[in-house]
């Protein structure tokens, strides 16, 4: 089921090991694991963990994934009934964002208790993941760009087949287009918190030759990852 779902959000990887871990998560009982089925195939999964915070007994749906909205709806209803039968005080869930949630969660309240913060540790693998897509290889092949991100120098060479990303040598980059920014700005661009035009105008992003600016700004607008970041309750530590 997980392999056949096309997610529209950033999410943590799921494999058999992680699913086995979630089914043995603290507070999960066998009767709190629900499967939705249709046409003899699994169309959804919900795992409820019962926790106690002081006096408050919570039913946390730590994992909820479904192929379609009807499966999601029936899983949420079943999980809620389970929590009511167990005399729990509150039920919480972080549902997958790609499905229409309005009907299923009418009468529920959205809430946010804390914020996720992120720091760049190494720019090279991130740049590789951000640039290695067909939209970029098709439109920008033949370009060679050197990124100066904090203390890292990274050379990106775009060919029609792939994007070659390697640690650069700052002395050998005169022919390439140079782009300088901090790790925070790269993350803000990747996560859609700022856009390349704004970063350029506020001088958070510097481009070696001004004539390359339109091309670089357009290229950087294509590295944005789809947000929001989807974190099931079981992923939140």
């Amino acid at each position, binding site marked *: 089921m997980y392999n056949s779902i096309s*997610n529209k*959000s*950033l999410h*943590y*990887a799921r494999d058999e*090991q992680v699913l086995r*871990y979630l089914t*043995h*998560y*603290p*507070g999960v009982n066998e009767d709190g694991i629900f499967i939705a089925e249709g046409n003899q195939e699994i169309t959804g999964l919900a795992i409820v963990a019962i*926790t106690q*915070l*002081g*006096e*408050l*007994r919570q039913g946390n749906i730590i994992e909820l994934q479904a192929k379609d909205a009807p499966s999601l709806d029936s899983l949420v209803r079943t999980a*809620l009934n389970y*929590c009511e039968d167990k005399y*729990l*005080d*509150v*039920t*919480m*869930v*972080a*549902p997958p964002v790609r499905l229409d*949630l309005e009907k299923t969660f009418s009468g*529920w*309240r*959205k*809430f*946010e*208790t*804390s*914020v*996720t*913060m*992120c*720091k*760049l*540790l*190494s720019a*090279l*693998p*991130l740049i590789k*993941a951000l640039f290695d*897509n067909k939209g970029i290889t098709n439109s920008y092949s033949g370009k060679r760009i050197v990124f100066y991100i904090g203390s890292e120098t990274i050379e990106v060479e775009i060919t029609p087949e792939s994007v070659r990303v390697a640690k650069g040598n700052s002395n050998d980059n005169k022919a390439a287009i140079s782009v300088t920014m901090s790790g*925070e700005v790269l*993350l*803000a661009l990747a*996560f859609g918190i700022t856009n390349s035009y704004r970063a350029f105008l506020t001088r958070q992003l510097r481009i070696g030759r001004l004539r390359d600016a339109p091309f670089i700004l357009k290229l950087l607008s294509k590295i944005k*990852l789809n*947000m*929001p*970041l*989807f*974190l099931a309750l079981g992923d*939140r*530590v």
Partner: protein
Amino acid sequence: MSSPKQVLSDNIIVRHYKNGDEAKIVDLLNLCYGEWGEVAKWQGLFPRYPTFNKNDVFILESNGEIIGHRSSRFRHLITPDNRSIFTAQFADTAVHPKYRRFGLYTRLHGLTLHAVRAKGACLIFTTNLRGSTTYKHNKKTGFIELGWAPAYAKIINPGKFLRSGLSDFINKNQKIRDSLQDLRNNLFFSIGKTEFSAVELLGEPAQQPKTSGSRVSIIFDESPLFLMTKFRTSSRLQRIASLVLLLLCGRIRIKFSSFKALAKFIRKGVRVLASL
């Protein structure tokens, strides 16, 4: 970390987790976070996680006592077009209150960042309460704040939810605990058929008001309950503004048993508001 143990300062060492540490770690987390949980929860969250390694848990120790903890979890973040980014997440960072303000958190933070970078993670995530000390520290040291998909909650027992939310907020805020002392025997909260006193929230046995004429009841409607979940992450101004708004909309009502109770509430209530 190049060696398994490093001396941070007088008698304080940093080391990795070893079997037998669990109970001491959980004691520390319960001390620092309030009701964090039990050993089974810690074991479920960390040692049982598929990518867990003992070196992913950092312990600060002083004279055999665990005074600091931080765990890291490694996993792949998947983009919508199936590209994979190797990341780490810091979790349950705690420094014993007696050992704060000696720069231990900063040292632990530096060591753990170095360790996760060495393992190949290109992004590090943390979860923080907005406005907390760690949130401010992270903002200064290159972390950016991300949005995430919302969570939903359905309240089954509003009385217990309110009581637990208020208790959590009051018990983690020493100033409000102190300022409630003057009103503790006379202040009551209610929602639906559930009623409890401020004394109970402070963890003391329930008592009747000294005089029946001094009773103040704060009556909640169900709709503002979710304010409780945001209360700790809001600024003081936001907290006061939302309370005033809820009062004006009639979502929270305050009942006084006498004019004397009103006068006392105004006098002492200002202190409570200031400590929010």
